[in-house]
């Protein structure tokens, strides 16, 4: 794996040409049918989800959507979901459970949207509900962080049996800018924050938060997307196979055990 500073990886994770969820869906799945709406309030384009075939097997795919063009970015709120997005995601995951489909989630978001209406409709409640319900799903759940995974807004799609990260993806409590501004009241110190936050894929693998790291071509996923898709496909197949052999309750129990250990003996983690 290439040697890069954490700040360089953050820049790559945010690269405007980096493949987004629609690229991954096109490359890894066939017959994708998009499902819209949370059935309560509205459709949130910052989350894309639906049914597709993965190597011929019906699966549910859900993830955050960042636009490619300016217009699309605005429509998708730059990949920052509101509560309706998280509730749609939950609706699709419950449906996946009903029809015994594995769930794949793709995460690339700077975080949940901090807006007035998002708060009025219960952003915190929507995220909490997802964490609670995802932990009990009786179908396999695989999550991939493809770019940035920030805050509860990323975690709300990431209570998974297997957490995969692309080599230059990052996963953190919030953006390095936000981190620096909260801790030192100086967003300008974000590069320093990047190093201290331990947010790179290799760091998270070492901490046991990520289960696998998918190599990217030198220079980043956007330079040779086909190669990245191939590597990711191979890893997803490899991780899905053993999960398909487990019973539903065993899957849920093992997922619980996995999260139960996080920070359970903080002294040894240091």
């Amino acid at each position, binding site marked *: 794996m290439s040697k890069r500073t954490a700040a360089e990886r953050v820049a790559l994770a945010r690269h405007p040409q980096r493949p987004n969820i629609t690229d991954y869906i096109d490359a890894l799945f066939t017959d994708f049918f998009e499902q819209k709406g949370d059935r309560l309030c509205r459709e949130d384009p910052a989350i894309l989800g639906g049914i597709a075939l993965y190597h011929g097997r019906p699966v549910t795919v859900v993830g955050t959507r960042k636009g490619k063009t300016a217009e699309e970015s605005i429509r998708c709120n730059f990949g920052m979901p509101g509560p309706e997005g998280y509730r749609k995601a939950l609706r699709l995951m419950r449906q996946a459970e009903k029809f015994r489909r594995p769930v794949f989630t793709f995460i690339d978001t700077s975080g949940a949207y901090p807006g*007035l209406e998002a*708060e009025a409709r219960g952003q915190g409640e929507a995220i*909490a509900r997802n964490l609670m319900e995802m932990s009990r799903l009786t179908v396999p759940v695989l999550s991939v962080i493809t770019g940035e995974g920030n*805050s*509860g807004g990323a975690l709300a799609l990431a209570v998974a049996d297997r957490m995969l990260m692309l080599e230059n993806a990052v996963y953190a409590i*919030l953006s390095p800018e936000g981190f620096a501004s909260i801790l030192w009241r100086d967003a300008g110190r974000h590069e320093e924050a990047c190093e201290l936050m331990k947010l790179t894929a290799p760091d998270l693998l070492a*901490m046991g938060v990520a289960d696998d790291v998918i190599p990217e071509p030198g220079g980043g996923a956007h330079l040779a997307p086909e190669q990245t898709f191939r590597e990711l496909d191979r890893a997803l197949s490899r991780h899905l196979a053993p999960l398909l052999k487990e019973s539903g309750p065993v899957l849920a129990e093992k997922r619980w055990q996995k999260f139960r250990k996080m*920070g359970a003996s903080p002294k040894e983690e240091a």
Partner: protein
Amino acid sequence: MNGIFAKRRARLLAMKAIRDNYIPGDQLAACPKCGGESQRKDVAGNLSVCPLCGYHFPIGAYYRLSTILDPGSFRELNEKLPAADPLSFPGYREKQREAQRKTGLTEAAVTATGTVGGRRCVVGVLDSRYMCGSMSAAVGEKITLAIEYAMKNKLPLVLFSASGGARMQEGILSLMQMAKTSAALARFSEKGLLYISVLTDPTTGGVTASFASLGDIILAEPGALIGFAGPRVIQQTIGETLPEGFQRAEYQEEHGFVDAVVPRQELRDTLARLLRLHEKGGRP
């Protein structure tokens, strides 16, 4: 023999509670809401609620427990669970020590068993004086252990939240506590057990987006700030001033996220009543 221990426990909690019920100022305490000055002992004697306008001063964890639990019933759980520094974050140990000195706590959460109106339950309290009650690995672990204890002993659970959100210095492990506590509550709930979440000022960030929002019943203290994103961040994002009362307990009640706003003076009775209503037959 039980009597002796009960007395000792009552005395211990009373001592810790006195220290926690401290309101800054000499003879007079100024209310940050109405600006009015009251005798400190009047505020302290009024459960740290401003006698003039009803503003609820933030209170420490042990004092909170002493206002809720029946005298002598307090038994602390996992008191010795240590604070941690999983990322070896520069300056963090010193910050922790400072917070420990200031509050007399080992971390931002205190968990205990006790009775409320004669009914046994597990109670957890976050203390906003300790690094803004932020969620560290130790806080997440204490809350999870409390949930597991309640589950094992088939007891109802009451959690008082007061938190600025994630503990920055613990990075991703702080985030993971959201998943851990929520997953623990999912298992707890499947056993048919009762969880009452009480939101106090302030409940924001990762605590709102996890266990605080997952109660079967959600109560809030009057005027408490409750939200995911903080008002400053929202204001910066949308570039306009926020409406009066935005994200306050009454606003959350109106928007459907809180069952009832309950003044501090009525909390103990309300909890006792809810515990009774969840007993078989609901006998008085």
